[in-house]
């Protein structure tokens, strides 16, 4: 780990001012940043410790029906907040499918959104990586790339964004509230993470010195509470990142048809991948397998392998269909013992043969 200066601001204004210096980084739970610093991938000159700032750890219901998640709310506290979990069950399920009990106790809402890719070549400082060292090349191209992107990638970077939390956040239209040297602004979460293009080192819409102060769910996000699921394929049952995941949320009209649908995918791109086209195709349809398969086709229409990962495309289609089936069947009373696991018993018996 490199040497750094440790700064502990007492107010938001002090935090933003301290972070304006080049080479400064915010410290929240530290579960991603310290890992990257130990590996020499992140080498900040100054750490601005946010964890002693007051007022950033609340989950608030606003009068208009939206919900504001403070930047420092711990992942475990958010998932286990009974009111929050009842309103946004797919978010609770996604959080509980991520990392481990210990990590979720430390990880914060903002830190989760800003966690960096798990591309092995990004982590290995002996490898070429355009994200870590712009212009150096991308050793994942033609390397071990089973886990890499099938949507939105470029020849410059084929990595994925690893967050589970962000997938239902994108589906539900969450907004990122930022505070920086130039004041406050907001960015929709679905536009917050950048696709790689020719500048994979530019990861998010966050400007220098800008801090995430909160994530906000708009009033309509709570409409889907009765029909929301998150489903995540992993290489082991628990404590593993997504190979492919999907958040699906529906409203069902009195005649049983789909009113509104929300759909986003994880593990397939350098951002949580919302498909508004698939959502539009589901509106007004009967919630049956044919409609779900059409939506899956649409969501993956532009997918192409970036290496040894063609398998992810049919896998993602199946996960989309299954997530939609589970959402249509209804949010379970209590989260399953294995949150988001495809190994949990499915409604109506076998779904795939």
């Amino acid at each position: 780990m490199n040497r750094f200066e440790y700064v502990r601001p007492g107010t938001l204004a002090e935090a933003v001012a301290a972070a304006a210096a080049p080479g400064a980084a915010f410290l929240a739970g530290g579960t991603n940043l310290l890992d990257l610093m130990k590996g020499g991938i992140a080498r900040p000159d100054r750490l601005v410790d946010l964890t002693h700032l007051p007022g950033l750890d609340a989950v608030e219901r606003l009068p208009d029906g939206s919900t504001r998640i403070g930047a420092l709310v711990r992942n475990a506290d958010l998932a286990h907040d009974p009111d929050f979990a009842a309103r946004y069950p797919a978010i609770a399920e996604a959080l509980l499918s991520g990392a481990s009990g210990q990590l979720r106790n430390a990880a914060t809402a903002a830190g989760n959104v800003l966690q960096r890719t798990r591309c092995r070549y990004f982590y290995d400082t002996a490898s070429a990586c355009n994200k870590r060292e712009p212009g150096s090349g991308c050793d994942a191209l033609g390397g071990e790339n089973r886990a890499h992107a099938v949507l939105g990638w470029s020849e410059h970077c084929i990595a994925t964004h690893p967050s589970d939390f962000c997938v239902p956040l994108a589906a539900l239209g969450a907004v990122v509230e930022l505070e920086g040297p130039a004041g406050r602004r907001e960015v929709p979460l679905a536009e917050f993470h950048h696709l790689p293009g020719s500048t994979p080192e530019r990861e998010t819409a966050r400007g220098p010195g800008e801090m995430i102060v909160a994530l906000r769910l708009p009033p309509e996000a709570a409409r889907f509470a009765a029909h929301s699921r998150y489903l995540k394929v992993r290489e082991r049952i628990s404590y593993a990142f997504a190979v492919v995941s999907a958040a699906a949320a529906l409203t069902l009209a009195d005649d049983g048809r789909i009113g509104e649908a929300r759909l986003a995918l994880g593990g397939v791109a350098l951002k949580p991948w919302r498909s508004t086209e698939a959502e539009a195709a589901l509106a007004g349809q009967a919630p049956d397998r044919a409609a779900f398969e059409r939506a899956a086709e649409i969501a993956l229409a532009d997918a192409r392998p970036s290496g040894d990962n063609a398998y992810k495309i049919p896998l993602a289609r199946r996960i989309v269909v299954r997530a939609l089936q589970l959402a249509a069947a209804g949010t379970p009373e209590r989260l399953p013992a294995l949150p988001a696991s495809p190994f949990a018993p499915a409604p109506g018996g076998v779904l795939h043969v």
Partner: protein
Amino acid sequence: MNHSIRLTINGEERRIDLDDPRVTLLDLLRERLDLTGTKKGCDRGQCGACTVLLDGRRVNSCLALAVSLDGSSVTTIEGLATNGELHPVQAAFIAHDGFQCGYCTPGQIMSAVGLIAEAQAGGDPERVREGMSGNLCRCGAYAGITEAVIEAGARMAEASGRQEKAA
């Protein structure tokens, strides 16, 4: 620059002067305070051997900067037994053979204490296994670990029920 912090460690309040902000809670415990019960496995959040309770919640001490924890209270495996009597989770690990080499055990036990306090898993083995998935055991003592966590959880619930009745 020196950083002076206050930590309550296993019930004892201590002032600690850190000459370097890079020290993790794990290294502080093991290298500077001689509390070597907490183990270093991966040092990267991937194994759970370093699990301690921070303000009553289980965390990986390898991914926590000590300087940032000023004012917190930490419980390690050394702080679980009271007056020479093992904590119910410790006793249950012995009764159920919840270990072989023992390297992961302090982390497993601290994680189990944290899990029981979270009160999400109850006596459901599937929920206990999922709740303990952040603790790897190279010896594969998982069957005994799950039994131990379930039994200790039940005993602790019983004991606190008795206490409530008595109160």
